């Protein structure tokens, strides 16, 4: 039973489509002693901004049925630390492709960060996050309006020749309008979805559970929303999609690929089980056998 689980994403060959999602895999090397990072198809790095950020006050995490809310608020050491320190260190530990995840509070900030990521040899793909719901100025604002998303994409496209993915928010009326705007401005691909805006209240204390009041909802409960978004965008655009949202098993990954994803990011599942990604990779051949799939690449967008 030899199965081909490799995929080609925007010209880059991934040995498998499993990628830990941004913000759910630390700086990237925390698990280096637990499993070989080279087993991963690629690694999406923590969301990075021009300046270092402490992020939001705590509590930043709230339990929900089928997932969690997070309001980390883009805690990160800043783009200079990413390109000068984090990414090179990770590159010295593994050869799997690295995806820089860029956030910003202005179009220029996105642009400058993308230029710095472009100049960093350790980074293979640039993913621009126009969908973070946890920062108050910017963040998701760029991902909820086609014109703003187009402007960020245009600036990012000028800044880098590396494969450029735009990461979209599900918190919009028509995700295909945003997706097409990014495609028209030269994005090489799209990552979807980021978290859904949510809130929990501690009914005993009569206060929001999160210090930030609201947070991003993720985990298995958002999986159907992610499948729907990926499928709608796959029908509306020609560029490749990295599917993300609620994936926790090899079956979920195959469903996501059938919906239209070329590769798949695994987020919250890493928080519950830091071995989730290698477990999904290990389970793939047997699940493909059951489903009569020889080559994963063959099922992309068949539904």
């Amino acid at each position, binding site marked *: 039973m030899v199965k081909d689980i490799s995929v080609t994403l925007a010209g880059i060959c991934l040995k498998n489509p499993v990628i830990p999602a941004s913000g759910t895999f630390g700086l990237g090397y*925390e698990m280096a002693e637990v499993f070989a990072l080279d087993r991963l198809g690629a690694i999406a790095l923590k969301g990075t901004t021009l300046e270092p950020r402490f992020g939001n006050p705590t509590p930043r995490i709230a339990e929900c049925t089928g997932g969690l809310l997070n309001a980390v608020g883009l805690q990160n050491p800043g783009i200079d630390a990413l390109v000068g320190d984090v990414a090179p260190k990770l590159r010295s530990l593994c050869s799997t492709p690295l995806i820089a995840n860029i956030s910003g509070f202005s179009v220029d900030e996105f642009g400058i960060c993308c230029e710095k990521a472009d100049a960093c040899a350790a980074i293979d793909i640039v993913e621009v996050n126009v969908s973070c719901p946890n920062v108050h100025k910017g963040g998701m604002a760029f991902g909820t309006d086609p014109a703003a998303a187009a402007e960020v994409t245009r600036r990012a496209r000028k800044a880098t020749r590396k494969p450029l993915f735009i990461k979209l928010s599900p918190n919009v009326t028509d995700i295909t309008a945003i997706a097409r705007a990014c495609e028209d401005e030269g994005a090489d691909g799209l990552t979807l979805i980021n978290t859904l805006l949510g809130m929990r209240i501690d009914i005993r204390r009569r206060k929001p559970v999160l210090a930030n009041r609201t947070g991003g909802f993720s985990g298995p409960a958002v999986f159907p929303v992610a499948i729907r978004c990926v499928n709608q965008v796959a029908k509306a655009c020609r560029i490749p999609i990295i599917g993300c949202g609620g994936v926790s098993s090899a079956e979920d990954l195959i469903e996501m690929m059938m919906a239209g994803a070329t590769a798949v990011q695994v987020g919250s599942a890493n928080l519950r089980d830091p071995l989730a990604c290698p477990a999904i990779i290990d389970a793939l051949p047997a699940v493909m056998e059951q489903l009569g799939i020889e080559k994963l690449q063959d099922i992309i967008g068949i539904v």
Partner: protein
Amino acid sequence: MEKRICTIERNSPVAPGCLRMSLTAEESLLHRCGQFVEVAVPGQYLRRPISVSLSEEGRLTLLYKVVGKGTAALAALKPGDKLDLLTGLGNGFDSSACRGKALLVGGGIGVAPLLQLCRDLRAAGREVSAILGFNTAAEILLREELEALGARVTVATMDGSAGIRGLVTDALQEAGADYDQAYVCGPMPMMRALYPLLPDASEFSLEERMGCGTGLCFGCTVQTTEGPRRICHDGPVFKKTQLPW
């Protein structure tokens, strides 16, 4: 970090709302004192962090308080049930930092990790005294266990129903403790009140709501003198000099 499937050997009340759980596994369950585990709880998406109270080759003992759905679900488990754990998390206390006499200060369920710490200190021949704070006499935890290890224990209760009436800070002043190195674990307000009273080398075990417990989510960050740090990954134990309180 290791993932372990453990068998519950015992899970029974030790004080109102508090239970002691002992777990066994075929593989090693050895922890440094002050490290914690992340327990997968039936019906909850996220694991829950619990300190290791005592660790032996194939056995772990946890001491926990029921405060919500996750800990309530833990309390409902029976001997023989299996539990999925991430073990060996966090840095732990540095018991070797104590060259003379040790003082342990714990409040409420925060006393849990002090048991293994006391054992390690005693095994290294250190003199240990402990100040434990609770609301009321019925809630006292670990007094006998620590005394059995040869620690001199002072209890403080808020209502005066046992030991000194008041906070651990009152007990600290009243007992006029004689020590070279202090170790603290308990609620944040208690630790902040102790902070100015203790020497620079003192170690504080911090708590924060956690997402992963393994350094992946940046959910548990605290500001330190060295910049933002993840409590689960760089702590939970921090030296007084690292805390900008």
